[in-house]
């Protein structure tokens, strides 16, 4: 059987997303070239309750806000940022 090559991306979770998943971070295994979009799709497959959040999240890669189609690697710090409410 052919082994599909995947990249493991560790996604950090905060605020309401952490409550939904019940963990601070989760590993996601992504085939091909991972982007924020494909990583989020994989997260939703495991945790369908995350789906309605899609349009309200920002992607952060290495502590910087980037567009959802930004590529990510296993070495990157990856987080989906729900609407912030500091102050």
């Amino acid at each position, binding site marked *: 059987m052919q082994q599909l090559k995947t990249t493991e991306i560790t996604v950090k979770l905060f*605020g*309401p997303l952490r409550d939904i998943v019940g963990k601070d971070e989760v590993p996601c295994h992504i085939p091909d070239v991972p982007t924020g979009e494909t990583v989020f799709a994989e997260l939703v497959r495991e945790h369908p309750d995350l789906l309605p*959040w899609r349009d309200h999240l920002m992607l*952060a890669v290495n502590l910087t806000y980037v567009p959802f189609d930004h590529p990510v690697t296993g070495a990157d710090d990856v*987080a989906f940022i729900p609407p*912030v409410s*500091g102050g």
Partner: protein
Amino acid sequence: MTTIVTITNQPIRIPDVLDAVSSPRAGGIDIFVGTVRDHSGGARVKRLEYTAYDAMALRLMHQVEEEIRSRWEVHGVVLIHRTGILEIGEIAVVTAVSCSHRKDAFDACRFAIDRIKAIVPIWKKEWTEEGESWGANEPLEIRERQQMKDRDAR
């Protein structure tokens, strides 16, 4: 030219902030103090819990400091956000600037708190009499969906 940018789980002491931000070059100091309010919308709030993406929050608070310094002639800047569980009346956030002139101080201080609220990854969970909630943090459609689920469950 003092700069203090911090996230802390310890109480914020205003006299310390005032000391730190003071400068012999300043003609005025503005301090904004954000405190825990006992209500949110119609609900009675018992306490709040703040969590942060610490590394990114610090980085963006430093960015806010740079933005302030590029727009106004400021001397001292202090930006502190508290995390953890806070009781009613406790200080959650402080932005302080010292400037040669008061207009710059007012404008820069207001910019600091508005910018922190807009971009820094910190989240506030509200503990009300009905339980815990993400308050305004939760998009309306998600709250409505949850309410419908709760109604169906009853």
